[in-house]
């Protein structure tokens, strides 16, 4: 059986390396384009991921190779007997210090990205100055509150705020920030394509910023098992050029203050077929 085990342990590093290499082609890699994040911060986070992947891959392949070598030698050698070793101070030091150094390196190396991602002081100023919307997670939908055109988002709802559900529009070409809240339980604001994930906690208002590097429609999902309807809690984040975004806000304003008379804009967001109401 010795050689069988050699093959067994040889199989795994090979399978791991091959599947990692194939992942982008068979759709097992990162969400969105299977490779690259849709935000610059996301690309940096991917970079971190790859770095850790490489470090762990080297360790994994190395240890597997050592196992295979040891087994192979043992299986082919009937004369030499194995020794029982009780501790080796040098060896202990080596395998404590090397991982320690690696972890310390990773901890220091990622600090910038973490700060840019999570520490408000490092957020892009333009985003902090004018939060785009308040995002309220609730079982099982995402509700959005935008300030009126030309106004700033206030802590408390205002009479001229614009409201929508499950469809967040944001302008392209600049970092945007939202204020994240939860109405009931813990939810998590997760934009897989942009590598953004932030828990929403009842009673807290948490700023989250992101910037897509391509206009488009991205999935917003809840990443915290929030109840039986968790799977339904899905929305779209639509990143669009500034003019289109302004146009959207205008339509939203029109809809929001619609008094049942006059022509409603044709682009009523598909939210109502008012064709019969003239």
């Amino acid at each position, binding site marked *: 059986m010795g050689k069988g085990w050699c093959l067994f342990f040889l199989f795994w590093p090979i399978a791991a390396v091959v599947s990692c290499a194939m992942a982008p082609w068979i759709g097992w890699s990162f969400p969105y384009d299977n490779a690259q994040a849709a935000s610059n911060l996301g690309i940096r986070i991917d970079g971190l991921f790859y770095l850790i992947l490489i470090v762990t891959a080297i360790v994994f392949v190395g240890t597997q190779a050592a196992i295979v070598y040891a087994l192979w030698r043992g299986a082919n050698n009937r004369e030499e007997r194995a020794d029982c070793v009780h501790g080796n101070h040098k060896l202990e030091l080596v395998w404590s210090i090397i991982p320690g150094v690696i972890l310390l390196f990773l901890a220091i190396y990622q600090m910038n990205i973490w700060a840019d991602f999570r520490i408000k002081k490092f957020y892009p100023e333009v985003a902090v100055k004018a939060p785009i919307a308040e995002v309220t997670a609730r*079982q*099982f*939908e995402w*509700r959005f509150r935008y300030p009126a055109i030309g106004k700033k988002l206030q802590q408390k*709802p*205002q*009479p001229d705020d614009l*409201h929508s*559900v*499950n*469809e967040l529009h944001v302008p392209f070409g600049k970092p945007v920030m939202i204020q994240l809240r939860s109405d009931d339980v813990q939810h998590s604001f997760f934009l897989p394509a942009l590598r953004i994930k932030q828990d929403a906690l009842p009673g807290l208002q948490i700023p989250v910023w992101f910037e897509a590097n391509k206009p488009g429609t991205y999935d917003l999902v809840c990443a915290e098992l929030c109840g*039986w*309807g968790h799977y*339904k*809690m*899905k*929305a*779209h984040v639509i990143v669009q050029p500034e003019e289109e975004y302004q146009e959207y806000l205008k339509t939203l304003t029109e*809809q*929001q*203050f*619609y*008094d*049942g*008379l*006059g022509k409603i804009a044709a682009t009523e967001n*598909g*939210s*109502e*077929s*008012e064709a*019969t*109401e003239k």
Partner: protein
Amino acid sequence: MFAKKTNELMPEAAKPVKEALVKQFGNPFALTQFEGLPTKFGDVEGTVKTVEASGADQPLIRFQATGLADSYDKLQGLPLEWTSGKGQGHISRIKEYNFETGTIAVEKSAEIDPQPGDTFKVECVRLQFGRDLYNRHCMHCHGMSGEGTGPTSRYLNPPPRDFRLGIYKYTSTKSTSKAQEADLERTVKEGIAGTYMPSFKLLTEDEVSAIVNYVIWLSIRGETEKKLDDELFLDYSQEVYDERTSEEGGETREEVLEELKEFMELDFPDTLEFATDSVSEAWEEANEEDALVIPKMPRVPDTPESRERGRKLYLSQKTKCASCHGPQGRGNGTATQDFWTNPATNEKYKNRGLHDIWGNQLPPRDLHRGIYRGGRRPIDTYRRLAAGIKGTPMPAFGGSLSDEELWDLVNYVMSLPYDGNR
């Protein structure tokens, strides 16, 4: 699947009711079409390409069909009507359907002998599609037949709607009308803020309309059942039967059954036809333009004066808003402290306060919360005031107040959430 009331009929009376419903509507696994309903059943047409040879002992005929490629992929169980060939006019039920190969299997019978080139149509496709979506997204709250008691319903407050009364709260139609399709579509897409009805905006337009189509169909089925039950309940419920055949009642079982038999033969077909017709008609009429509530004048500018006029109206005897919603709009008016009478049973409710037609305790809305279940546009609030909220004690003021007064009230009510501490 059947209403409680149907099951409380004496078995001899319940049987024909159930049979009629199954005949008219089918069951959730095999839906049936009958003509005259305002819901879309949807047909797709196909042609027989080749017929597989079948032995004498095989109960099914298999044939390959063309023309169904882009249609709904689960045709199994649906009725297939032959539109040409020997079997023309006959209906077979599809026993098997393979979407990949386009093979259909139907039961063998003397009339059905498909030949290449024969045409047929498959009925109910749209309804079936709606049912599948409903079962996936709605059923666990609203229940299999729309009775509002799905497995999750017991955890929800407010409870999910029972569709079988055909009453929907948030509509754009007059107080006596049913909901428009667009109203239900909006509810599905926007959700109902402040309740567990979430938004299903990510479904496609087509999916939403298919779900609404099915929900309306469930409503019509439920309403028809209720009408039949109401017709029979006073004479033939199990309770009445026991009373009639008790010693004081003095009737024998045979006498009651004889009377029931006579009713079933003479009156029941008409009752059934009337029930389905009146329900279908009401649904059809709701989609017509004059069912809509449309203000006669645009919104009165939202000025402090207008709000003040609205506030006076709110507190006046004319509207009595304050008796339910409270003098400050906190939803704590005096009406919430009374014991009310259930209009359906003429008995007092067990709990204090207002109740809706489904029997749930219904606190009047706290107007300061800024949560608008029926939508937050001025027109939505206008419609709540003008046409009331169906199935609830919220009355329609469209007749008693002028448009100007209604808009003043709208302005006042919509200003409350932003009104400091008042």
